[in-house]
């Protein structure tokens, strides 16, 4: 490889995403059925698309203020109050970002000094560990266990805390497990975060895809409110992944620091996308309800089918993933997925792509039509017969 020595060692040592490898193999094959996608299958509701088109038509294509359009920040804060009962001030507490991804990056870069530890409950979305490492932080993985329904317990958290612990990443409902945390679940870990003054970085991108009861945010706890940073966005709730609009809600003194990185690296989120997001956040509650109901039904369907074909699967309470154990087959996650692709032309994502804690599991997305899910299930069934 060229420039081996010149390239920043941190970047050189970053592991390429295990998902990327799978994508490359799957892309070379014909007739692949995939349950491997991490985005909703709905086309963005028309009134939201139309708002983006209208913005472009009207020439609303200049930079916006760094923090994002005031109407969008107000819409977001109204939304958090309306949907989750949590108040933020649009002027002081909010920044609009280029998707949740940018938000994760600039929040962690703002918080971390070299060597600071970040507790990362795994299996976790692939970007967290890489971003922590790029910010020269140290990833401290704690394992979310299937028997705990992939919730974070105080016992597991307490053991991971050291004098250097700066922050914890919370992602509930979570990718890849679909696990959630209720208010009572959070109540057990909040005292630990308060005692050790650990920042709670809570990525709530799947908040609206909570199927039993209402989404709970750790920002509900006033005693740690100042050290809580909410990350959310429009991708999953409104099926707006390609628009790249996310946001950060946090204490004003954190926001003013985070804003420095945002203004120098990004300037502002894409303007027409921001206008689309205004339409979504103000007039999209019905879309959310409709899409969430459809995901819930498909979740019910796939869990029942997976159990029927012999893959013991518990009913996840959020997101659009199930994360069943494949240990009965005696195969590793990667072997399982490689053979499945090879023999049955079905693409799933190996659990270990989400950290070592995911070994022995696979991630199955149900953001697909019922017909696609049926074909996938029959392929998986035939695979399990040959490897049972």
């Amino acid at each position: 490889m060229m420039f081996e020595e010149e390239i920043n060692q941190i970047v050189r040592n970053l592991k390429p995403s295990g998902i990327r490898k799978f994508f490359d193999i799957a892309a070379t094959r014909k007739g692949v059925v995939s349950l491997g996608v991490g985005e909703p299958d709905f086309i963005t509701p028309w009134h939201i698309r139309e708002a983006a088109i209208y913005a472009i038509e009207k020439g609303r294509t200049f930079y916006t203020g760094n923090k994002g359009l005031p109407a969008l920040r107000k819409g977001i804060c109204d939304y958090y109050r309306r949907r989750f009962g949590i108040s933020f001030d649009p002027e002081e507490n909010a920044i609009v970002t280029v998707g949740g991804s940018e938000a994760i990056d600039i929040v962690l870069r703002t918080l971390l000094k070299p060597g600071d530890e970040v507790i990362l409950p795994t299996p976790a979305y692939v970007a967290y560990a890489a971003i922590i490492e790029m910010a020269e932080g140290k990833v401290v993985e704690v394992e979310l266990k299937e028997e705990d329904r992939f919730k974070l317990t105080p016992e597991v958290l307490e053991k991971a805390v050291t004098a250097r612990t700066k922050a914890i990443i919370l992602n509930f409902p979570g990718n890849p497990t679909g696990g959630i945390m209720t208010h009572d679940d959070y109540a057990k870990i909040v005292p630990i975060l308060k005692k050790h003054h650990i920042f709670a970085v809570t990525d709530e991108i799947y908040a609206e895809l909570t199927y039993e009861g209402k989404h709970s945010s750790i920002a509900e706890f006033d005693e740690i409110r100042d050290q809580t940073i909410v990350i959310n966005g429009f991708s999953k709730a409104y099926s707006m992944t390609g628009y790249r609009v996310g946001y950060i809600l946090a204490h004003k003194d954190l926001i003013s620091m985070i804003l420095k990185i945002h203004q120098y690296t990004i300037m502002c989120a894409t303007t027409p996308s921001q206008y689309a997001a205004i339409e979504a956040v103000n007039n999209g509650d019905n879309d959310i309800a409709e899409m969430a109901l459809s995901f819930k039904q498909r979740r019910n369907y796939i869990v029942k089918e997976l159990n029927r074909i012999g893959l013991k699967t518990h009913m996840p309470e959020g997101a659009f993933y199930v994360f069943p154990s494949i240990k009965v087959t005696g195969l590793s996650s990667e072997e399982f997925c490689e053979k499945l692709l090879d023999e049955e032309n079905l693409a799933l994502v190996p659990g270990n792509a989400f950290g070592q804690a995911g070994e022995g599991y696979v991630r199955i997305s149900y953001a697909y039509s019922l017909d696609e899910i049926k074909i996938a299930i029959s392929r998986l069934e035939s695979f399990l017969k040959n490897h049972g």
Partner: protein
Amino acid sequence: MNKELLLLLENNARYEVRDLASLLNEDETLVEKAIKDLEARNVIAGYHTIINWDKADTEISKAIIFVNCVPERESGYDKVAEKIARYPEVDSLYLISGKAEFMLQVNGKNMREVSNFVAHKLAPTEGVSGTETMFILKEYKLNGKELLDEREDGERLLVTP
């Protein structure tokens, strides 16, 4: 369960009971019973296929017709509506607000057939005082389904995080 069940069936009447039960996380026999009950109570009034006749190379003529009518003592508009609704040519019939009392859709094999129906059956109906017929030239959306061919949806990647 009923509302969720109805919404599913409204969108796709061909779901198998087994699939409906899985989607709703309910017992199959319960779902079957619920459907039977909804049918018996006429909540589910029928099952219907959305057909793009244009593409089927079958000539068919449809018209929207506004009908003015005089209400009858005691029965109001219902008696007249019942009489109009009985004609098989009438596909749908609504009592509406605005300049007319009824709006109906009439289907026929061709324009002549629809015209004959209006002239010889609908207009002379007792209580009907006037009609205004608008022939449908092209259908863009039927029962919630877009019929346009040029529509193109984006494609998702095969595998993403």
